[in-house]
């Protein structure tokens, strides 16, 4: 299925890996904003819900040449032949034509997990358990985001509720276009080193568009041809090579 249609806007991110120190602030802000429940009892790093996940990569050398980089990875919002969209048997995954954002529809999801198998970025997460919040913490849930039930898949949607709020605000002011300052995902807002830029990639004046065209910008697994809308930047060669498709040697592999 060719999903390469032209959306009105093409929201995307550029993450500067040379600025990222792996603090995890983006992941925490994401979880709070999107009502991602705390890890269930006995959940592991393989069964948790981490819409934004920080991976650690190493250059494979020994001390003192050893180097580390952190890769914050969320859904890459693929724009062409989007792997998860074409495989879902009941259209529970879609691309918003207004924004280019790949969206998940949990109330329609069967929980077959075929989309997770299809996603090369491991950016989709399954609710293996009932979501539960500690007592009183439910009062702190974000009222603009639905909580998900057990047995469905969920993932980053570039804080869709914030986009809806921005659209509503623009409409209230009689405008057709949103003010870019009104639509900033939680992870971007939370990053203490300002490593993440966000905006419309199709707007040549936007910071994100400028950064995505920088010579040190790259995308993960670009050869798979899925046209991800999340870019990464690094001046370090070995970090940029980490975006290649080639399967890692075990010794090189390290996991966050």
């Amino acid at each position, binding site marked *: 299925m060719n999903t390469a249609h032209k959306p009105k806007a093409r929201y995307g991110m550029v993450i500067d890996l040379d600025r990222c120190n792996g603090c995890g602030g983006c992941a925490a802000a994401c979880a709070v904003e999107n009502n991602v429940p705390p890890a269930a009892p006995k959940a592991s790093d393989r069964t948790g819900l981490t819409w934004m996940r920080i991976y650690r990569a190493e250059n494979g050398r020994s001390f003192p040449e050893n180097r580390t980089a952190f890769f914050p990875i969320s859904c890459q919002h693929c724009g062409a032949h989007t792997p998860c969209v074409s*495989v879902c048997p009941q259209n529970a995954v879609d691309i918003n034509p207004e924004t280019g954002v790949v969206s998940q529809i949990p109330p329609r999801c069967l929980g077959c997990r075929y989309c997770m198998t*299809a996603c090369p970025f*491991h950016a989709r997460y399954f609710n293996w358990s009932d979501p539960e919040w500690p007592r009183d913490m439910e009062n702190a849930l974000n009222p603009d985001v639905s909580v998900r039930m057990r047995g469905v898949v969920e993932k980053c949607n570039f804080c869709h509720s914030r986009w809806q709020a921005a659209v509503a605000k623009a409409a209230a002011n009689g405008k057709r276009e949103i003010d870019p300052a009104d639509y900033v995902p939680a992870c971007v807002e939370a990053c203490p080193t300002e490593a993440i830029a966000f905006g419309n990639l199709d707007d040549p004046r936007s910071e994100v568009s400028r950064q995505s065209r920088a010579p040190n910008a790259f995308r993960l697994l670009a050869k798979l041809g899925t046209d991800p809308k999340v870019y990464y930047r690094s001046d370090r060669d070995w970090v940029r090579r980490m975006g290649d498709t080639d399967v890692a040697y075990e010794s090189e592999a390290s996991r966050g």
Partner: protein
Amino acid sequence: MDKGLIRRGIRRCSTGQFLAWLTPWVAMLGFGVLAIGLCLVKGLNQTNMDNRFAFGLWIFLDLTIIALGAGAFFTGFLLYILRREELRAVINSAVVIGFICYSGAILVLMVDVGQPLRAWFTFWHPNVHSMLTEVTFCITCYLTVLAIEYAPIMLKNRQLRKVPSFLVFEFELHKVMPVFAAVGTFLSFFHQGSLGGLYGVLHGRPFAYREGFAIWPSTFFLFILSAIATGPAFVLLTTWMVSKVARKELVRKNVYSLLAKISGWLLIVYVGFKSIDTLVWLNRTAPLSGVSPIRFYAWAPFDIWLLFVEIAGFGLLPALIFLSPARRRSVPWMIAGSLLACAGVATNRFVMTIQTLAVPTLKFEPFMLYYPSWQEVATFLFVVAYGVILYSLSFRYLTLFPQERDLQH
């Protein structure tokens, strides 16, 4: 006690012996019910699957038993469409096995999905681009066809035959059976193919992705071929196993030999295409995705030996056994060949399901493995027990092997 239900002129063990045979299987069934209950009530945290191993033991075994169940439609196709009358000796058994395999697979799928009550959504708002949609439609329809094919076998029971309307219905069903055999063949070809397509279309997973013809990746055709090659071998194997348990001949030797010959020819064709496909994948498809394919096998548990075992050990070897007229005169050789062929289809489904997920895509992710939980194993044992019980009841009270009566005299 149940003599009135058993076909005239057929020897069966006593009711007591039969109940003793069923007892362990019923216990296993109960164990499975417990595991299924836990999964349905507490959720899939009862399994050891995770976000990387989103598919696990269940999908691997579902694909395997669906492939083995292909013996039903393919025997039907050979008998009703190609008129291989010798296969009338095993068609009833093949239909029952097919029914067990498909209903068992659907049952496990219902536990495997996170929201089983939403299964009907696929019919309500289907994504016509998804191979899984096609699989869902065809498997559901084909299970209905299998139930229709099962009906006349049941209606032939000694007591049910006494109801005149059943007799008429059974007679009418027989007349249209070639139509159902044709429909079943069509449906089965497509869903066996689409099960292969499930993996072949995953262009985000270079280990699974295959180029193909039009919208179908090569795995679409390879899954059809491997299923129809193994189906007859599985019919052969189960017939032999039943005859060992029942301690009597159920079919004439020429039926075994014919099934082995069919399986052999199809296996050799499969091995040929599979080898070509593997070479194209290793030399063209994977490198185009930016992967040096040898890296797929850089991890000991899934070393390159698995590829050779799958194609040569479990593909070429049984094909050569089956194609040798001397070996086809020996039942032990044919059984060995059948076991190898069935192991081959299981290995292929294992590789496509488990190895695909074990191989990382991101460079900083490691190879991974997962071990199923006891709930996953017990859920599958439920299907095994259900299959044995349903088959045992069918064997005792229905005519699964028409030649049996002649052979015991």
